[in-house]
């Protein structure tokens, strides 16, 4: 196991590369999923607000 993490002495280069890619890919994916959810609720709230205003006037 220790040998696996050591990567034949290249641990820094190998694991930093994989970490950068893993973090960016994961962040990108999750943030655009979250953005979609936010947009749906935001647009829904905006539409409701408009309907509320038209009803009052």
């Amino acid at each position, binding site marked *: 196991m220790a040998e*696996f993490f050591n*990567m*034949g*002495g*290249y641990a820094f*280069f*190998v694991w*930093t*590369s*994989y970490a*950068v*890619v893993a973090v*960016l*890919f994961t962040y*990108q*994916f999750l943030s*655009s*999923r979250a*953005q*979609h959810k936010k*947009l*749906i609720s935001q*647009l*829904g709230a*905006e*539409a409701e607000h408009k309907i509320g205003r038209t009803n009052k006037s």
Partner: protein
Amino acid sequence: MTTESLNTSGRGKKWLWFHRFGSPAWVYGFANRWAMPIGIVALLLFVVGLYQGLIVAPPDYQMGDSYRIIFIHVPSAWLSMFSYFVMAASAGIGLVWHIKVSDLVARSIAPLGAMFTFCALVTGSLWGKPTWGTYWVWDARLTSELVLLFLFIGYIALSNAIEDRRTASRASAVLALVGVINLPIIHFSVEWWNTLHQGSTVTKLGRPSIDTRMLIPLLIMFVAFNFYFLSAVLNRLRCELLSQERRTQWVREIVHG
């Protein structure tokens, strides 16, 4: 439904599938349906590819374990160029035929392309240090890849800088199309100039100069990256479609439902 109306719809069917690609509502539905399943396929492929690449594949006889960076470096570099090509083509189609969905596809790809280019540069740099003894050198391949990153950033900046939607997509489409000239420069840079960066390993004519046990994880990771890209484009595209079409009936129906 009468027989007559069935016949009419049957005649129209031949072209129906093609027209759907231009319909924001249909494309939104498609992206919504497929983004997650495709993302899950990508995740499964990543797991298998990482297992094969980091555990099963043997160390290289010259580079030791540092060569394992190849499994993320080559797919990142491929996607950096492929995504630019698709972005420019899509922006070009939007420019010529005024197809809104096309512009939005290009807009969705740009940040992803910048990310892949950044990944290719960083992983390449981290591979260069133990292999060449330096993180960076102004080699033709490395420099043209850096130019690609600036092209993506320029595209994003330009399309966000102009207030008017149509002017913005027109101007940025022209930038994207002019930048296509950089793609053959990146690809052939290792042949045209005597560079530090090595030539192609896998796509070389004849036998690829790589052990099968290393080639298999590389191919799996390559497919995984492409599935990830597709899923990510669909994810971003649904956001672009919703916010651009916020005043239309189909978006209202979706946000109320």
